[in-house]
């Protein structure tokens, strides 16, 4: 059986990749994808612990998280579409309209 630590390490690596992307990428779609990565790393943790503890709660929670991520992605893409329509670009560095 694969020890729990491996799962946690995988989760941490995936999360770090997501975080790195989130902090460095300019493209909106990529940033959304990075957010998905981070959410999934959390899901890995949930499932791993759930299995480790023999308790279904974590897996159910992970299902919730995936459902919410799907909904978030849908809305995120919709926002990207409208930003693109408005600005002809989805470069987030240009999009500081909420500043002050």
């Amino acid at each position, binding site marked *: 059986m694969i020890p729990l630590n491996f799962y946690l390490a995988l989760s941490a690596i995936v999360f770090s990749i997501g*975080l790195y992307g*989130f*902090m460095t990428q300019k493209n909106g779609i990529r940033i959304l994808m990075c957010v998905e990565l981070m959410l999934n790393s959390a899901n890995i943790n949930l499932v791993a612990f759930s299995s480790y503890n023999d308790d279904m709660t974590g897996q159910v929670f992970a299902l919730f998280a995936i459902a919410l991520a799907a909904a978030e992605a849908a809305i995120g893409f919709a926002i990207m579409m409208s930003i693109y329509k408005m600005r002809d670009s989805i470069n*987030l560095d240009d*999009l*500081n309209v*909420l*500043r*002050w």
Partner: protein
Amino acid sequence: MPIGDFAFLIPVLPALAFVLTFFLGKKLPQGGAIIPIAAIAASFVISLIITINLLQNPEEVVTQSYQWFSAFNLGILIDPLAAVMLTMVTFVSLLIHIYSVGYMSHEPAKSRYFAETALFTASMLSLILSDNILQLFISWELVGLCSFLLIGFWYQKPSAASAAKKAFLTTRIGDVMFLAGIVLLTTDLFKIVNGTIPEQLYMLRFDTMFHYIPELNAMSSTILGFEVSHLTLITLLFFGGAVGKSGQFPLHVWLPDAMEGPTTVSALIHAATMVTAGVYLVARTFPMFIAAPDSLIVVAYLGAFTAIFAATMGVVMNDIKRVLAYSTVSQLGYMMLGLGVGAVIGAEAVGVSIFHLVSHAFFKALLFLCAGSVIHAVGTHDMRQLGGVAKVMPITAATMVAASLALAGFGIPKTIVGTTGFFSKDPIIEFAYLFGAEGGSWLPYIFAIIAALLTSFYIFRLIFMTFAGEPRTDYGGHESPATMTVPLAILGIFALFFGAISAKTFTHFVSETFHNNFVHVDIHALAELGNYHIAAEHGHEPLLIIWMPIIVATIGLVLAYLIYYQRAIDVSRFVTRENPLYKLLYNRYYQNEILTEFFAVKIVYESISMATYYLDRGFDWIVKLLSDIVFEAGEAFRQVQTGNIRHYATAVVLGVSLLVVLVKLVMEVI
């Protein structure tokens, strides 16, 4: 039902009249003058009956007392001292009110005038019959308020408004001292009873206060290196209040300016109400004064000094009302001197002084009302423009002469022939002589004699300039209506004959105040407490001393006659701006300049404005600093809000990491 049960009505009726006149006066003829006149007449009748009762049976002192908080009370006390004051105030006030109907007939705001004078009288009456010093102080303040309202009656005139303010603020200095005296007295009494007040003991009631005089005398504090007994301190503070209200040096500056009010108000202030309050306060607390060695001496010296000081200014004034105003200040000085000589003659001083107060009220009210009558008819109060008024106003002139004779104190010693002023002023001068003989200081006596000479001179100067000779300018003039002349005639009779019939009885009656069954104190024991030696007997002064006042009064009259009627002596050489003495007197010793321009403006005003300027700047600086900090911080934090999502992400990550590290650290410490 004994008449004493109605005593509380004496101040209440005029107070009610104030309310009624204030609200209904406009709808009634003559501004509703009938309401205060009726109320004060009723008060007068009650006071008179109580006084007559007391005269026949000195034990029947009226006292009523109600608890107010645990240590104080509200109550009335009518002993001989209060009784004569009440009768005098109601009587003079009644005549002044009747006179006012004629005098104020052309005035649009009549109802306000009558309402305010009614309140003035009510406050004065409640002051007189207070049986405790706290209630007296409340009425004292009310009197001050009413004087403010009435002096500034013509508030549209800037000079009247500023005179009202000056009166209020100047007397306020005295009032603060009086209040400080009461506070000191209360704390000391609390100390004496160890903070537990026995049942039915009212701290500030006069009998309680007097009962604790020896204990108060034993307490002392060190001030400027002098050991001062608390009793001396309290009495001096009380006297400070009296100095303010009674216009004694140096707080007399408001009194001449108070002439800005209607002349009837001047009569009321100078005769019956405001200025007598100070003398009454000292007379009322006389047992405390006689036990305080230094206070009475201060009273005597300040009184004598004020008498002569004000008289010198009266000599050069050209305004008929201002001469009378300085005369009041001077005569009040005599009253204070009369109380001050209590050091050698004991309680009789109160009788003598209050008798002068009452007789002064009669002739000073009369002088003012006559002056008012002249002003009413002629329309000017500059004596240089008048002259020969007697021809058009014979009744006014006759009563004025009667009042002047009383003021100058004409009479023949050792007989019962004399004006009221003679019977009241001469004993004070004689006692001042006794004060010199026993106490070794002749200054008060010399001052009193010179002031008597000046008094006679300035009042006959006024008479000759105004009433005698030929008119100097073309004024119309007519005799005043009966509402004005009848009060004049009544007061004239009192000014001439009241003294002759009542002098002995009156003085004796009032002196008995402190021996009756309410405030029984042993004046001799108290005097010994103050190390006084009360002269065993008097009345054996040398003949010259007894005749002295009348001699100087005659000299004054003759001088005034020669200068201002016969013109045998030409004084125009002296009456110029070049003469430094005349200039000094005419400018009233530059008191206005010293007090207002130097003291008030330079010292008080400028130092306070300097202090407040820097204080203000200081606050400004602090406030500016705080706002700058907030502003700069906002500016700095604004830069953080880039609106760039990646910066926010970085911030979140850093924040979470920091939180984790912190939690880890905290966990380890725990």
